[in-house]
């Protein structure tokens, strides 16, 4: 069963989220730890500005143990000695609810900034990292792939992303409420990543001057060239704080890069002119105490949420259309997963049918039909294969269809196992046919079985 354990902007403040967040550099190690947990069959770790969560596949009957394992790993990641301390902030979703959550996250329906495009890229990065480490395989991998499909449909079939209230546009709006027109203002971006690039696109047409300050000057210069901005060396940050009016911070630093003392010195040089920080990084880039300085205002991602909610209200119609798409895609995936539940029964049924018929054929070919030529034997074998397929086509199709449409297909599968005397593998609920010569296809589903219902 698929489960999700994590926290987001809805359940935990940025102070908690930033403790648990994982940078790209340590993500493989974290995934390796998750993969080594025997309670988890598959796992993916998603860490963004607004959420930190583990999506996993638990062993059958091992849901509680899997949740506990994930809580322990999250606590370990955040340096929290007792995992129970995290409980007030964590959500745990299982089964259909967990899958729904994954789909909605990928489609940006659970984002603070509804319809923002970054989340899909972040989920893809998490997916790639998990695949690289080997912690993502069949079922969960299929779930995430399907979530990508849903997200793409939402993006192309609705206008949820068009004119969306991005963090950058919210930052611009906030800056306008502080400064009025920005065309006399200097805006500085701290960091030169994806978020900084999005902010630069929003701000470059409004601001009088755009400065980009990044640890890697080359990266800052490259982005500055693209955005008709000016690159600033990292060492000159404090000096530039005296000139900038709006600072949008989005570096990947694990510790604050702008301190209270630094800003106090800058404010003396600014002769008290208003300074606005929009800190969209998690962990935060600006010390929270900076907000206490006169004429200085610091807004982090949580503070911007109410601005975003206003944008959400304006696009409620698009949200409903997007939710419908997610619902459609979700139904298809859930049908597929329920199909997986009856798959062992289908396979066992086919294996048994083949075993019985081919055993009889072998006996006849060794006895009364031993005079047949090789060509005749091949024709008989082919006929037997066709008979098995035709005979079992209806029960197979009906069982799968029932599984796709109803949650109680398990009862029907049990009836099939009873009628055909299919043995059940202890503790797994999977059906198994007796091993017979000439019928060694194993329990692997055929390509046809793997196909997703459409």
């Amino acid at each position: 069963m698929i489960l999700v354990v994590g926290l987001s902007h809805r359940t935990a403040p940025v102070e908690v989220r930033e403790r648990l967040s994982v940078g790209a550099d340590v993500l493989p190690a974290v995934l390796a730890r998750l993969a080594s947990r025997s309670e988890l069959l598959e796992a993916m770790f998603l860490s963004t500005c607004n959420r930190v969560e583990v999506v996993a596949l638990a062993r059958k009957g091992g849901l509680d143990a899997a949740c506990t394992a994930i809580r322990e790993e999250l606590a370990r990641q955040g340096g929290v000695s007792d995992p129970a301390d995290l409980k007030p902030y964590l959500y745990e979703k299982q089964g259909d609810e967990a899958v729904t959550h994954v789909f909605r996250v990928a489609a940006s329906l659970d984002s603070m900034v509804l319809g923002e495009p970054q989340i899909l890229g972040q989920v893809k990065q998490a997916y790639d990292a998990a695949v690289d480490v080997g912690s993502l395989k069949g079922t969960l991998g299929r779930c995430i792939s399907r979530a990508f499909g849903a997200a793409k449909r939402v993006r192309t079939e609705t206008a949820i992303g068009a004119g969306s209230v991005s963090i950058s546009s919210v930052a611009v709006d906030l800056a306008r409420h502080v400064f009025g027109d920005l065309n006399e203002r200097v805006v500085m971006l701290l960091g030169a990543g994806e978020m900084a690039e999005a902010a630069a696109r929003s701000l470059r047409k409004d601001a009088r001057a755009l400065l980009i300050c990044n640890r890697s000057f080359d990266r800052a210069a490259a982005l500055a060239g693209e955005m008709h901005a000016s690159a600033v060396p990292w060492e000159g940050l404090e000096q530039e704080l005296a000139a900038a009016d709006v600072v949008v911070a989005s570096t990947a630093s694990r510790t604050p890069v702008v301190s209270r003392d630094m800003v106090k010195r800058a404010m003396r040089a600014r002769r008290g002119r208003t300074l606005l920080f929009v800190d969209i990084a998690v962990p935060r880039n600006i010390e929270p105490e900076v907000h206490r300085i006169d004429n200085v205002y610091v807004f982090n991602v949580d503070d911007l949420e109410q601005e975003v909610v206003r944008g959400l209200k304006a696009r409620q119609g698009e949200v409903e259309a997007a939710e419908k798409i997610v619902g459609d895609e979700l139904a298809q995936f859930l049908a597929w997963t329920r199909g997986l539940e009856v798959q062992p029964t289908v396979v066992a049924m086919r294996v048994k049918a083949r075993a019985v018929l081919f055993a009889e054929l072998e006996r006849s070919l060794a006895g009364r039909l031993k005079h047949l030529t090789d060509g005749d034997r091949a024709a008989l074998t082919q006929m037997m294969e066709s008979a098995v397929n035709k005979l079992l086509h209806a029960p197979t199709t009906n069982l799968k269809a029932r599984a796709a449409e109803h949650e109680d297909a398990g009862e029907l599968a049990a009836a099939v196992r009873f009628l055909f005397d299919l043995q059940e593998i202890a503790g797994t609920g999977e059906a198994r046919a007796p091993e017979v010569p000439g019928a060694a296809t194993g329990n692997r589903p055929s390509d046809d079985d793997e196909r997703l219902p459409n």
Partner: protein
Amino acid sequence: MNLLLADILFGATAAVYLAACVLFAAFLLGRAERAARWAPRLVAVGVPLHAAQIVVASLVLHVCPVAGIHFSMSIASMVAAAAYVLARARFRIDVVGAFVAPLALTFLLASRFVGSADVPRFRSAILPFHVAANLLGVALFTLAFATAVAYLVQERRLKQKKLEGIFQRLPALDALDRAEHRFLVAGFPLLTIGVLTGTLWAREVEAGGAAEIARAALGYVSWVLFGLVLLLRAAAGWRGRRAAYGTIAGFGFTVLVLLFYLVRDAAAGASVAMGGP
């Protein structure tokens, strides 16, 4: 020209200002978004009505409108409203009218119902200059006060990170700070002239009563406060909240000076009514 016309103009002006107050209040309370468009226009309509009322009333009463506190208060509020109408587009401070309109209405009503239109006993050639400079200064300080109050509201919302409600409706924080500074810069020389002419006038008429001294002292304090706000902003970068508090304090002392005049005139009126001198 008769008293009825003056009364009609007075009533019309008061009604227009009152309507502007109601619309501004409705807008700030989030009840009527379109009110923000109409309320400043009503103030703009109120200004010429107000001016006409002052002219007609002063002609009817045969009183020079800048010769005493009675009409001067009314003129000050009219000038404040006019300055607001002119400045609102430049500084984008439409909503500051929410503070200006009630002040204009209050001053208008006070000029009618508090004190009398009699001119002071001590007449002097300096007096019209003193009153004119002061009333213009008071008008600009009224606007500075209104923008300072709006600034403090915005600043508090920003520090508390409450970005909904009134925060969305008030002008940008920095626009308020700049507008407040400009009003002070424009008003301070006028106040300086008012203080100087007031001092000269007091010497001329040899005013030396305790009330006169206290009123003059309050006038000096407001002048010093406004001066300090401007000086500290220029020299030490004191702007924003500190400047707003200084402006409000300075305006408070200015209002106290006006109250002194009103109380004096009211007392004089009562004394005359009781058969006194």
